[in-house]
């Protein structure tokens, strides 16, 4: 599965949102209406799924699905 598909699927599973409503440009807060606790949960799931660490200061900058995909591509071993 492509990284993009993987990330969207993970977001859908965590947030119980429909994959059809999640685009790569989707903004977690403005479009998907996630709150701060939702974001903590999502980042943790990303860390577990892709085997990497997302430090606080980096996590704060990940506002969209694209941002997450970019981060994973850069940091995945």
């Amino acid at each position, binding site marked *: 599965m492509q990284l993009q598909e993987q990330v969207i699927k993970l977001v859908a599973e965590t947030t*119980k*949102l429909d994959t059809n409503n999640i685009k790569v440009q989707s903004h977690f807060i403005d479009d998907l209406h996630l709150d701060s606790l939702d974001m903590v949960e999502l980042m943790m799931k990303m860390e577990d799924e892709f085997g990497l660490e997302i430090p606080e200061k980096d996590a704060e900058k990940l506002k969209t699905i694209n941002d997450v995909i970019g981060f994973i591509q850069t940091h995945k071993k």
Partner: protein
Amino acid sequence: MNIHRVVVTGLGAVSGTGLNVESNWHSLLAGISGVKRVSESDYPDEVETIPFPVTILGKPKNFLLEEELLSARESGRYDLFIHYALKAAQEALAHGELLDLNKSPYERSRMGVILGVGMGGFPFIEKQYRELLKKSRPKTNPFFITSVIPNMAPGLISMRFGLEGANFAVSSACASSGHAILNAFQLIQLGQQDVILAGGSEAVFTKLTTSGFATIKALSTRDVDPEQASCPFDRDRDGFVMGEGSGILLLENRESAIKRGAKILAEIVSVGLSSDAYHVTAPHPDGKGAINSMKQALEIAKIPPEEVDYINAHGTSTPIGDKIESQAIKTVFGKHAYELNISSTKSMTGHLLGAAAGLESVICVKSLLTQSIAPTINLKNPDPECDLNYTPNTMAKKSIKYAMNNSFGFGGTNTSILFKSADA
């Protein structure tokens, strides 16, 4: 200072005997037990290395909370006792026609929620701990803390229904809901709040919790059908059967309730309380705690013992507890103890621990409304030391003006709530 009268204008209940008040009451009057066999496969999150010490439970059947109360995403974030509380709270508010706050005459800051929770989110606590042990860093599901703390039940209710007044949970083991109702009653009496959802919720059927109770021989373990295990006041009783669920009363200032045209279901006239000051689990052998709690309820209400027609007993089906409670009732009520009706609905619902007094208060109000008494089932061989009228096995029709609900908890904590019929 002006003491306001407090009435009940709504009821909500979820338990093994029904998912709402009417189905509960129907089963209870018919003497139908909600205690069933549960299996390991019902609890896939539990450890596999040891078995449950008991496999019977009074569990709400096919319980699922509607999307509007908890969305699919939120559902997994709050432990079961919170789900039950939300359901019962919604039912009570709808019953009292206060679900739509835009149509309510009250200020939201004067509408509160106070619930008794004896133990709280044990299932999630245990699950999260097991998850943590598998990890290499100190992180949990971000919703862990907020899913297990007892006051999240009143918290979620206030969020869902927009109630901005008093908001807290009360804890006193099996008397928790009794004290929650007491707190709510007094806040309305004093005029500090106008409406309060008061009762309790509990769901702690886990291997850890049941092992804890089983180790101190508090649970029934004899080999009978699940429906027959809970037999308060019977010679063969051997411990309580766990139940889970929620029971909530909508309590309201009587004057303003009448003014808005609410239907008055019953009145709370007093709540007696006491402590045995004796032992962590056993009641005082002289029944001091129970005696004082019941006496205080009568004294505050200024009514003679002969006016009480029905006592919904604590009656957990333990060898010592049932005997002491019977003795205490005889001490407080004298000859009248043999004339009034007693019943332990725990014979059908099981023991809801912190939620017991909440559910049993709903049952007392239904008794007053229908002038009927739900039986103590499984009373086949009465214990000679328990010789009162426990409304054995079949329901009774009776003129009831005052009904009392007893709840006694570990630590020797006691409450006795006295209800009066709305028509009296």
